[in-house]
C-alpha cells in the first residue's frame, strides 16, 4: 500500500483527522473536570470573603465556616438601592470580575453584591471589589464595621503583579495592615470620602489615606481607583438606609 505522504490530499487529510481527534479528547477532559473546577472556584471565593474579616479557613472546612459567619447577603444597584428578591446565593454567584470586564455593561448597570457577617457578636459588611493593576486584574474585599463608616480590615489580591513590588498589595504586613488603623469610608455627614494612596509616608493618623508601595505606584493607584469607584456606591447605600 503506497500512499504518497507528501501529497496535498494526504497532508490535509492528516491535519483534519488530527484536529478532530485532539478536539474530541480536549472537549471530553474539559467537560469532565468542569464541575470540580467550579466547586474549587466557589470555595476559593468563600475563603476570600472570610479572609476579609480575618477568619482563616481551609478548603476542607470553608463551607461550614462560611455558613456560620456569613448571615446574609444581597445585591445593590449602581445607585445604592437594594435590588429586591436577591439572596445570599445570588450575591455569591454574581461574578463582578466578568461584569467589570464586559464593556457591554455600562457602569450604571453594574450590580454590587454585599455580604453581611457576624464575628464575635459584631455585625460586619463585606464589600467585594475588582479593578486594574499594572499587568492584570486586581481584586479585594473591604470589611466595614456596623456603624457603616469605619473600615475593619481589607484584603487584596492580584493575578500578575510584579513580585516584591505591585504584588505587595497582597501582603498583610506591607500594605493591608494600614487599613485597620482607623480608616473611614465616609465623613461625619455621611458623605463618601476616598482613601488616597499616597507616595512616601505621612498617611498614618489620616483616616482617608494610606501609604502606597514603593515601586508599585501603578498597582497602588489601581487599588485607590478600585476602592473609590466601588465604595462610593456602597456609601450611598449605607447612607440611604
Amino acid at each position, binding site marked *: 500500500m503506497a500512499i504518497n*505522504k507528501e501529497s496535498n490530499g*494526504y497532508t490535509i487529510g*492528516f491535519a483534519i483527522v488530527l484536529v478532530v481527534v485532539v478536539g474530541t479528547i480536549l472537549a471530553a*477532559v474539559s467537560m469532565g*473536570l468542569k464541575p*470540580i473546577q467550579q466547586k*474549587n472556584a466557589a470555595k476559593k471565593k468563600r475563603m476570600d470573603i472570610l479572609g476579609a474579616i480575618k477568619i482563616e479557613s481551609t*478548603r476542607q472546612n470553608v463551607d461550614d465556616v462560611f455558613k456560620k459567619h456569613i448571615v446574609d447577603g444581597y445585591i445593590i444597584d449602581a445607585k445604592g438601592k437594594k435590588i429586591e428578591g436577591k439572596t445570599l446565593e445570588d450575591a455569591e454567584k454574581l461574578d463582578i470580575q466578568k461584569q467589570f470586564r464586559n464593556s457591554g455593561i455600562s457602569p450604571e448597570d453594574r450590580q454590587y453584591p454585599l455580604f453581611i457577617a457576624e464575628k464575635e457578636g459584631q455585625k460586619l459588611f463585606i464589600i467585594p471589589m475588582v479593578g486594574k493593576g499594572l499587568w492584570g486584574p486586581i481584586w479585594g474585599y473591604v470589611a466595614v464595621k456596623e456603624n457603616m463608616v469605619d473600615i475593619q480590615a481589607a484584603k487584596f489580591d492580584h*493575578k500578575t503583579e510584579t513580585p516584591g513590588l505591585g504584588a505587595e498589595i497582597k501582603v498583610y504586613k506591607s500594605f493591608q495592615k494600614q487599613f485597620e488603623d482607623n480608616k473611614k469610608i465616609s465623613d461625619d455627614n455621611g458623605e463618601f470620602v476616598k482613601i488616597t494612596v499616597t507616595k512616601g509616608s505621612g498617611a498614618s493618623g489620616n483616616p482617608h489615606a494610606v501609604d502606597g508601595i514603593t515601586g508599585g505606584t501603578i498597582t497602588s493607584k489601581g487599588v485607590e481607583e478600585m476602592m473609590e469607584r466601588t465604595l462610593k456606591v456602597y456609601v450611598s447605600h449605607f447612607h440611604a438606609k
Partner: protein
Amino acid sequence: MSETVKTKAPKEPLFSKKNRKLVIDPLEDNNPVTVQVLGICSALAITVQVEQALVMTGSVLFVLALGNVVISLMRNLIPSRIRIIVQLVVVASLVIIVNEVLKAFLPDMAEKLSVFVGLIITNCIIMGRFEAFAMAQKPWPSFLDGIGNTLGYGIVLVLVSIVRELFGSGTLMGFPILGDKVEGTGLFATDWYANNNLMILPPMALITVGIIIWVQRSRNKALIEDH
C-alpha cells in the same frame, strides 16, 4: 529526510546500555538547561519556591514523556511539511490537559503557577526533543528520552529554587528555615541575615543558573567549548 531507517537489529532489552544512557546523559553531560541552554525561560519564572519547581517538573514530565511517545508512534505518518505544526498540536493539547487537571485537583498550585503552565508549550526542550529525537526513534527510547530530559531539567529547576527560596523567603517547601529572631520563627533564627528580595526577582535565577553552569564545567572539562 523524514524517512526513518528501518533497523533490522535484534530486539534489544528494555534497559540496555543504550537505553540507560538516554536517561542518564541529560542529567549531567547533556543537561538540557546547563549544557544545551534550553528551557531557561521557565527556569526563571517558577523557581521562586521549591514546591512550584516540583509541580512544574511533574507537568513537564507528563507532557514530554507522553508527547515523545505520541510523536514517535505517529512518526511514519506525519507529513514532513506540517510536522512542526503537528508537534505543536500535540504539546498544546497535553499542556491543556495538565492545566485542567491541576485546576481541578491542585487549585492552589494552579493559581501560583498561573500562566506558566500554559507556557510549557513554549518550553524549547519539548519541541527540541520531539523534532530531534522522537521523530526518528521508536516509542520506548523516546519515552526514556523524555524522562531523562525532564529529570535533567528538573534537577536544575529544583537546585535553583532551593537557593532562591532559602535566601529569598527563608523557607524550604514553605517550612521556615531562616527565621526572624524577634518573632522567634524558623529553624535557625538569625539576626545577621535578612531575606534578600533580589533573590525573588528573575535576574537572580539567571545568575544562579550561571553559577551552576560554571561549577559543572569546572568539574567536567569536556563540556568547555574551544574557541
